[in-house]
C-alpha cells in the first residue's frame, strides 16, 4: 500500500510489537524456533505473521504458506519460519497440548 492510503489509520511496525522487554509471542516463537538467520527479512515476516494470525488464529501449514507468500527469505528455506508461526499460533490461542506434529525441521 502507499503511505497516503494509511492516512487516519493505526499502523503497527516491528518496533511496536514488544512490550518493553516482553517479546510478542510471534517474536518469541521466531527466537525459539530459529526462524531467522541474517534477520533482514524478519520484521516483514513477523508483521505478515501477525496479520495472518489476526485473520486466522489457528492456520494449517498450507494456510501459513499462503498467508506469507508475499514475503521472501533467502536464509532459512522457510522451514523454521513455518514452525515459528505454528508455535506462535499455539501460544496466542493458549492451546498448548493440542499441537499438531510439526513436519518441518530436524531433530
Amino acid at each position, binding site marked *: 500500500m502507499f503511505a497516503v492510503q494509511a492516512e487516519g489509520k493505526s499502523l503497527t511496525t516491528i518496533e511496536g510489537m514488544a512490550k518493553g522487554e516482553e517479546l510478542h509471542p510471534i517474536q518469541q516463537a521466531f527466537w525459539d524456533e530459529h526462524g531467522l538467520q541474517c*534477520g533482514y527479512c524478519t520484521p516483514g515476516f513477523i508483521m505478515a505473521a501477525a496479520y495472518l494470525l489476526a485473520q486466522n488464529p489457528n492456520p494449517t501449514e498450507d494456510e501459513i504458506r499462503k498467508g506469507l507468500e508475499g514475503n*521472501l527469505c*533467502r*536464509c532459512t*528455506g522457510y522451514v523454521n519460519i513455518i514452525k515459528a508461526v505454528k508455535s506462535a499460533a499455539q501460544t496466542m490461542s493458549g492451546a498448548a497440548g493440542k499441537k499438531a506434529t510439526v513436519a518441518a525441521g530436524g531433530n
Partner: protein
Amino acid sequence: MAVTQLVGAKIHRREDPRLITGHGHYIDDFTRQGAAYAAFVRSPFAHARIKRIDITDASKAPGVVGVFTARDFKGQLAGTHPAAPAFVAEKKYIPERFPIAEKEVCYQGEIVAAVLADSKAQAADAANLIQVEYDELPAVMDLEKALDAKSPKAHEGAADNISWDLTYTGPEVTEAAFKEADVVVKERILQNRLAPVPMEPRGVLAEYETYDKKLTIWMSSQNPHFIRLFVSGSMGLKESQVRVISPDVGGGFGSKISPYPEDYLVPALSRLSERPVKWIETRTESMQNATHGRGQFYDVEVAAKKDGTLLGMRMTQYLDVGAYCGTFSAFQACACLMAGGAYKWKGISARTIGILTNRVPTDPYRGAGRPEATHLVERMVDLVAGQLKLDPVAIRRKNFIQPKEFPYTQNFGLVVDSGDYEKSLDRALELAGYDELRKKQADLRKQGRYFGIGLSTWIELCGFGPSAATAPATGGIALVESAQVRVTPTGSVIVYTGTHAHGQGHETTFSQIVADQLGVPYESVELRHGDTAEGTSFGYGTYGSRSLAVGGVAVSKAVGKVIDKGKKLAAHMLEAAEEDIVFERGSFHVKGSPDKSKAFGEVAFASYGMNLPEGMEQGLEAVAYFDPPNLVWPFGAHVAVVEIDAETGHVQLEKYVAVDDCGNIINPMIVDGQIHGGVAQAIAQALYEEVVYDEETGQLKTGTLLDYSIPGIGEIPAMSLDHTVTPSPTNDLGVKGIGEAGTIAASAAVINAVCDALSPLGIKHVDMPASPDRLWNMMKGARK
C-alpha cells in the same frame, strides 16, 4: 575438548533479540552528518565503446555536488581489480579492470559515471540527465562460440576470450581405466548461472577525514579486512589509515566476499568531495552488478565395469568468467578437484577453461565449485546405474571410499580427513522409507504417473585453509584465521575473531565454545567481529564454510593460551608447581587437592595486580593464529522425492531427507538452519532460478525478482533432517563446516529424482532449472 553443557546444546541465538525487534544495524541504518548520496550511471549495453559523456545538464541539476567520470578517479585510485590465481596455476589472461569504465564497457551495468547530490533522489534524478554516447560492439555470450579463434572478443583488442585453460590431469591418467571399461557413459551437464540475491543488497558509506587523513568505510561485507587491504592499496593509504566496519550483514552467500567497483569509488568520492558519501544498491543494480555464480557446462565421460565398479572419469569444465576475472573466480575450478565425489576411481582426467564473456563476472556463490562437482558426479553415477540397470543405492555402496581407508588420498592428491559414507546413506534411506518409496513408485508408474526418487551422497572440502595450499592460491596471503581473547579484571571475556557472520550466529556459537572452555557463564563472554579497528591485525573473513573449522579453532587456541598463563599465575597463588595445576570447570586447582583452588575470575583479577610470579607481565589476554594442517571434509546423504505433473511438467517435491555429517556440532539448531537454507538454495537452482541474458544483445532479462524467481514459502518443502557425527581429526574441536553443505548436496538429489521420474519416457538427463516449460517440452518430445 571436553564437551560440557554448552557445546552441542541448542542455545538461543544472542543475535536475535535485536533482529526480531527491528533493532538490527544493516548498512542503510547508518548515516553521517552532512553525507552526500552517490548514484551511478551504468552501461545499458553489454559491450560498447564510450564515445562521449555529456555531464552539462546533470551538473546543473538541483542538489548536485558533482559529477565524476573515469578521468576524475585516475589520481584517486591506482591499480587493477585484484584477481587471486586460486587453484589455477597458469593464468593466461586477466583483463585490466578500473572501477569505472573510460573507453570501453564490457557488461551491462558497468559504471561509466557517478553523481553526488545532497539527497538520494536528487542523485538519481541527476544521473538520468547524463548523456552517454556509445558505439555498440558485438557481445560475446555463447561459451563455445567464444572459444573459436574468429569469435568477437569480450574485450576489444584481446587475443582471445580465454582467461585460463588448465589441464590438471591429462587423458593419459585414464587410458587404462577406459580400456578396461564395459560401458562408457557421456553427458554434457549444464550449470545454470545464478544470482546470489542476499535480501540486503550491498551498500557503502565512506567518510574521509581530510585533516586526519583517515578513512572509515561502513559496508555490508563478509570480508572487511580484505576490503581494507585492497581499498587502502588502491587509494595510496596505509592500512592503518583505513577502518572498515561491516555491521549486521543481511545475507551474503559469497556475493559480499570480493571487492566491487563501488567499494573503491564511494571512498574516493568522499576524498574528492570532502563529504561523507553513501550509496545503497538497488535490487536491479544488485542483479546486474553483484557477482553471479555457476554459469558453466561440463563435458563428462565415465568408464565403468558391468558390475557397476567405477573406473575412470574424463571431464572438462567450461566456466563463464564474465567480463572480468572475479577476485576469487578461479576458485570455482575446484569443481575439477572434487569431481570424484565419495567414490574410488582409477583415474580422473580434468581440465578447466575459464571463458570471458560480456556478462557480469562470476565469483564464489554458496558452495562455489563443490555443488557443481557433486551435481556432476552424482548425475554420472545415476547415468551409469541406469545404463547397467543397477539400483542407484547399490552402485554408490559398491564404490564408496570405506571408513577404514581414511585418511584417503584422492585422485588429485587431496587427503580426505574422515568419513563414513554408508552410515549416512543408511540413515537417509531409513528416514525416507526408501524400499516403500520404490514400491509406491512401481504402483504409480502403472497408473502412468511420474514419481521419482533421487539420491545425492555428497562430499565437500571446506575450511580454507592450510597455508601451503592457500597462500599460493591467493597470491601470498594464507587463509588461516586469527583470534584474540581478552579477559578484563572482573572476568569478562571479549573474543575477537577475523571471521565475520551474515546470519550464521557466530556471536552465539563462538561464545558457547569459549564459555565451555573457560568454565565461565555464557553471559560473560562476548564475541566481536566485523570491525578492522578491533582485535587482531588481520582477519580472513567468512566464506567456504571456514568460520568454525578455522576461526573457531583459532579462538580455542587463544583460550588455551589464556588458560596456560592462568595456570602459571594460579600455581604462584596456590604456592604449587605449575605442572601440578589442573584447570577444570572454571577453576584452577592443585592435582589431587580440589579444595586448593582459585576460580578463573580470581586469577583474572590477580593478573592485573602486583603479586605476580617473577617475570610475568600484567594482564590476561592472548592472540592466536590457526593454520589448519588440512581442509575438512563434511559429507552426507540426501534423498529427494518428486512427482511430475504429466500435463504441465510441474515438479512437486513430495519429500526431502537430509542426513549430514559436519563432525562435532556446536549448536544443532543452527546446523539444521544452515541445512534448511542451503537445501533451499539448491532446490532453487534445480527447479527455479536462472540468470538469463539475451543471447544476441547481452541484455539482462532477469533484472528484478519478478523475472528471477527465487523460491517463496510455497516452493520449499518440509525437510526431515538427521546427522551422523564423524569428527575431523584435523582440528582440536573435531569440527567440519556446514554453511554450504545443503547447497552442495541438494541439486543432484532433486535432479536425480526428476530424471528417475521421467525414466519411463526414456529421458535420461535433465538440465537445470527443471522448469515446467523445459520438462513439458521434453515430455512432449519423448512421447512422440
